[in-house]
């Protein structure tokens, strides 16, 4: 799915890259925000499910029973080549077992690797940048409890100049923003907004992009062509989606639409993740969607 995203994003990186090169050294988080925090692995599992990390970082043929094995390997094709999700299991050699909390925070919040490189936005850190430090801390604690896996990460198969990570800096300067989009008129809607805009990366699929590959925030969640080339990803704002709040909650729980067909395509994975959240969180996401303009 992120193929098109990657394509356009990278096209842009080249445009912005030259100018951006000098002003775009990768940034890091303020470590002070994380220093006093203690991780709660149990809550971290919810963060992990809400953020859909397993959808990309488990092996393509993995089964769904038991704790996820984050061996990586899923391919994300684009016009510029293929990206592979890396091994992020706690293996100290091939995974991220040697990372500290701020390494994970820098990756998720700033898109910056421990050795100071930019990540490609196929890793949706542009969404995760909104994640609360406590949630990142809990997530870190949970990920350390997962099985290790010795599969080496595959190198991305990307050609020049897109293989130069530094060129992503221009794109980051232009498009990396921590603004919130939807309303937060009640506590429930605010929780839904956090789940959608900080963790769920719903917009990566459901929001159309402009010619330069940037999410068109004026058409937030209003549907987009499916990068796989088949079908479209639906508009999920109240203008088109007439489902009731209860219909939405059922969809996020069992995957059944109001016609009792089931969620298909990439959404099936998303539902699988959402179904593991507390019911209140699914209700909050539904409330947020119903509150969109």
């Amino acid at each position, binding site marked *: 799915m992120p193929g098109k995203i990657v394509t356009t994003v990278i096209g842009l990186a080249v445009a912005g890259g030259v100018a951006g090169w000098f002003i775009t050294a990768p940034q890091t988080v303020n470590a002070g925000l994380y220093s006093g925090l203690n991780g709660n692995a149990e809550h971290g599992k919810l963060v992990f499910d809400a953020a859909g990390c397993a959808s990309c970082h488990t092996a393509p043929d993995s089964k769904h029973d038991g704790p996820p094995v984050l061996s990586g390997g899923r391919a994300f094709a684009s016009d510029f080549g293929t990206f592979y999700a890396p091994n992020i299991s706690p293996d100290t050699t091939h995974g991220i077992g040697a990372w500290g909390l701020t390494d994970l925070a820098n990756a998720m919040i700033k898109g910056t690797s421990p050795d100071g490189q930019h990540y490609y936005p196929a890793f949706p850190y542009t969404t995760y940048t909104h994640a609360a430090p406590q949630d990142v801390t809990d997530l870190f604690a949970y990920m350390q409890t997962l099985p290790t896996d010795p599969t080496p990460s595959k190198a991305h198969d990307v050609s020049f100049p897109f293989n130069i990570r530094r060129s992503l800096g221009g794109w980051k300067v232009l498009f990396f923003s921590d603004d919130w989009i939807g309303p937060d008129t009640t506590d429930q809607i605010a929780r839904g907004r956090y789940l959608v805009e900080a963790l769920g990366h719903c917009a990566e699929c459901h929001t159309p992009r402009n010619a330069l590959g940037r999410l068109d925030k004026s058409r937030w969640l209003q549907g987009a062509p499916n990068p796989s080339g088949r*079908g479209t990803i639906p508009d999920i704002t109240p203008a088109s989606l007439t489902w009731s709040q209860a219909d939405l909650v*059922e969809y996020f729980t*069992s*995957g059944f639409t109001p016609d*009792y067909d089931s969620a*298909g395509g990439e959404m*099936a994975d998303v539902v699988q993740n959402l179904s593991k959240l507390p019911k209140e969180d699914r209700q909050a996401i539904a409330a947020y969607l119903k509150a969109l303009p």
Partner: protein
Amino acid sequence: MTLRAFLTTLTLSAVAATGAYAQDDAAKAAIKARQAQMDLYAFNLGALGAMAKGAVAYDADAASKAAGNLAMLTKLDQSRMWPEGSDDMSADNTRALPAMWENMGDVMAKGGDLAKAAAAMEAAAGNGLESLQAAMGPLGGACGACHKAYRAPES
């Protein structure tokens, strides 16, 4: 070409054509039948889902009947519903991906998962709303897992 040869060719191609048409018709009928099977799943789920969502009041008897139907449907023999050449590359009006025919073992396993989830619903549906609600998720997962792997997106 002699007349005889010409006639033979003509007859042979007519036979071939009839064969092709017959096959086409068989594929069409199979596609209709399996879509009807799917629609019957959905129809019976509708009764269960409306209760799960709170759109209609829970009724143990109605729930058990719908769940019983669903479980029964999963036991129908479907072997003739999925003939070769009825995938979405070869035939019209279907969203079944060719990958189905390359992974029949997995397709059968996914069908088996559905039968298990439907049996669990059959056992749960009459035992109160919460027990019905809890059985909806696994059912949805079983339908969705097969659609995700083997059904093309709506175009």
